[in-house]
């Protein structure tokens, strides 16, 4: 008897089904976007919205409190974008540096055999990790505004650093000609130190003799640049902040917005970094340390040569992820008005220009670029750090 083939039998073929399914999904998505874009074009026409990136060349017409590059209200809107971008990068880098330092200290303190220190570090982590970052930013900002003195009653440190509710005022270093040679000396010192380190490492590999290179390092990194600096007759002067009227003039200042943002970001992210470091160290099995000690390594050596390299291998990827999170969280500055990208470009400028589509798109692209860059770094690090097993 001949089997009667249903005309739909080809649907039982897995490959054909998968193909059809993908086509259907694709059609759905394309038609969804087609529809959305159609609506968008309609809306643009009916509401008379300007489109295109011409607005970037137009004069911005508003002031920005903090800018590291030249900016005034007559600068272009593109300039606003750059100012915001630079401020985002500055606060992120500062935050990353402090978060790493605090995180490292807390992470190690968490494993200290000193009961009080370990408990304090644990308390720190549980306290700051479980409070939303935006709340922390607002809290510190509020605290500065409420409890810091007015400019006339500033806290004073060494007669040249002033702290008040307008921020921190520091002497501003102004380099004169000749300072370039100090930098040259510093770079030279770093390069020479690397060579010296390599030499002694080779000696160690060949003969097993260890040499303490601390003296060389000090000489090359500290003494050399300082000597050059002094020989050239101190080619740097300081511009001190002075109280004039109601405010300080001169010097350089860190605004309360910047301070509270950087502080909150560092404090908050440090808890995650500390946890990453702790779990990295804890995951190195005890046998590794015992084996190292049995080989005759000192406790210091076993920590430096055996435990830490393995711990860091596990800790570094989550730490780099936290750096990315910190950068993304810096966008919360919009709540306190520190002039970074989201606050000044996607905030103030969006209200002025109103071209939401283009502005939000550009802002998103910046963050995407940053996160792509960081994941690229992460991949490279992962590749380098992977333990070469036989």
């Amino acid at each position, binding site marked *: 008897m001949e089997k009667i083939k249903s005309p739909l039998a080809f649907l039982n073929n897995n490959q054909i089904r998968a193909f059809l399914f*993908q086509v259907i999904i694709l059609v759905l998505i394309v038609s969804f976007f087609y529809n959305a874009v159609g*609506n968008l074009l309609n809306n643009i026409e009916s509401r008379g919205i300007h489109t295109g990136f011409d607005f970037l060349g137009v004069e911005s017409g508003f002031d920005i409190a903090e800018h590291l590059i030249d900016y005034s209200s007559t600068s272009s809107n593109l300039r606003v974008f750059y100012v915001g971008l630079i401020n985002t990068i500055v606060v992120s880098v500062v935050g990353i540096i402090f978060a790493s330092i605090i995180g490292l200290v807390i992470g190690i303190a968490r494993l200290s055999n000193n009961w*009080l220190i370990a408990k*304090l570090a644990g308390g720190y982590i549980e306290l700051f990790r479980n409070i939303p970052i*935006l709340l922390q930013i607002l*809290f510190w900002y509020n605290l500065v505004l409420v409890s810091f003195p007015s400019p006339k009653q500033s806290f004073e440190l060494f007669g040249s650093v002033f702290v008040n509710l307008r921020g921190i005022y520091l002497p501003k270093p102004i380099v004169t000609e000749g300072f370039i040679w100090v930098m040259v000396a510093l770079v030279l010192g770093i390069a020479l130190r690397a060579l010296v380190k390599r030499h002694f490492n080779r000696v160690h590999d060949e003969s097993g003799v260890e040499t303490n290179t601390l003296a060389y390092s000090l000489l090359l990194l500290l003494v050399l640049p300082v000597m050059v600096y002094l020989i050239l007759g101190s080619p740097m002067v300081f511009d001190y902040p002075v109280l004039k009227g109601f405010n300080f003039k001169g010097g350089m200042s860190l605004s309360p917005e910047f301070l509270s943002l950087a502080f909150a970001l560092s404090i908050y992210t440090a808890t995650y970094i500390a946890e990453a470091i702790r779990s990295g160290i804890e995951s190195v099995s005890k046998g590794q340390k015992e084996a190292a000690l049995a080989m005759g390594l000192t406790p210091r050596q076993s920590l430096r040569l055996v435990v830490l390299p393995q711990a860091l291998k596990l800790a570094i990827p989550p730490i780099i992820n936290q750096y990315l999170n910190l950068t993304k969280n810096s966008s*919360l500055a919009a709540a306190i008005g520190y002039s970074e990208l*989201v606050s000044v470009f996607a905030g103030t400028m969006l209200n002025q220009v109103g071209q939401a589509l283009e502005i939000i798109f550009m802002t998103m692209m910046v963050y995407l670029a*940053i*996160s792509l860059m960081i994941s690229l770094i992460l991949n490279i690090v992962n590749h380098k750090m992977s333990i070469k097993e036989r």
Partner: protein
Amino acid sequence: MAVFKQQVAKKAPNLKIGVIHWLRENLFSSVVNSVLTLLALYLIYLIVPTVVNWALFDATFAPVTNEQCGREGACWSYIIEKLDLFMYGFYPPESYWRPQWVLILALIFVWIAKLLKQHKYKTKIVTTLIIIYPIIALFLLYGGLSLEIVETHKWGGLMLTIVVATAGIVASFPIGVLLALGRQSKMPVIRFLSVVYIEFIRGLPLITILFMASVVLPLFFNEGMDMDKLLRALIGITLFQSVYIAEVIRGGLQVIPKGQYEAADAMGLSFVQKTGLIILPQALKISIPNIVGSFIALFKDTTLLLIIGLFDILSMVHLTSSDENWLGRSTEGYVFVMVVMWIILYSMSRYSKALELRYSTDHKN
């Protein structure tokens, strides 16, 4: 024969027992440790008395006006007077029973689910409860039929925070499951789309997505479709959160051994049966602690509603402290919100830790 008198055992030296021993071992085991201990004590001495004095001993708890509160300590009278705003926002006071019942119902449903244990129809009953709960909750909160309608712009305070976080996680869960499956799929188009979506959203801060949802999104819809502000925020949050859920579930999917897939195939199960009956139940169970973890993250993120102008518990601080009767009390407001948030988040993170221990199948401990 010599007779030996039994000697009384010497007591252990004082340095080796009791408090002194503990102190020596844990706080003063070396010079460095002793210095650290003293430093830590000094730090505690600097911080704790100031904070405790401000928050408790110098503080005012009585319901008095701003002027009657001292400036040395906290003025909790402000919190007491504004407590309703912190909890419910502008929700009409005569309807406070509605959000309260939403919460009570949630507890009752969880309790029912617990009672059922291994009941024959457990899955069916629980599924029904999960499906009807959001409908009841929405009905109670928003109103309709005979209940008076409360517009969403009146929702606020802790209530809004909880509603947004819960709705966000519930809405993003199915999308997250689909995205996770899509990312693991063998179909190139599906996998590509899932990966692009996930990586795109993951690179963005939530605030840009919220801005997009509140400013750009309306442009993509038909004119006249006036979308609620809260709904727009929820769409943004769902788009954002589903990606993180997807990554969590992908982690669960990755540890399912290949044999499970092969066994399901050998049994002749279809793709849907295989995924729904064999793979997902195991993957989801493994990911539960991390799903709680991402709920915690979402709960923290709801504070961002403040930036797009919704009145969550954090924005109530702004609002109430600009009341001219209570000027200069924002610190109390922030501290109060911090305490509330901390208690909620800390208990959830404890819960997630406990779940992790319960579900961990490796014998590390």
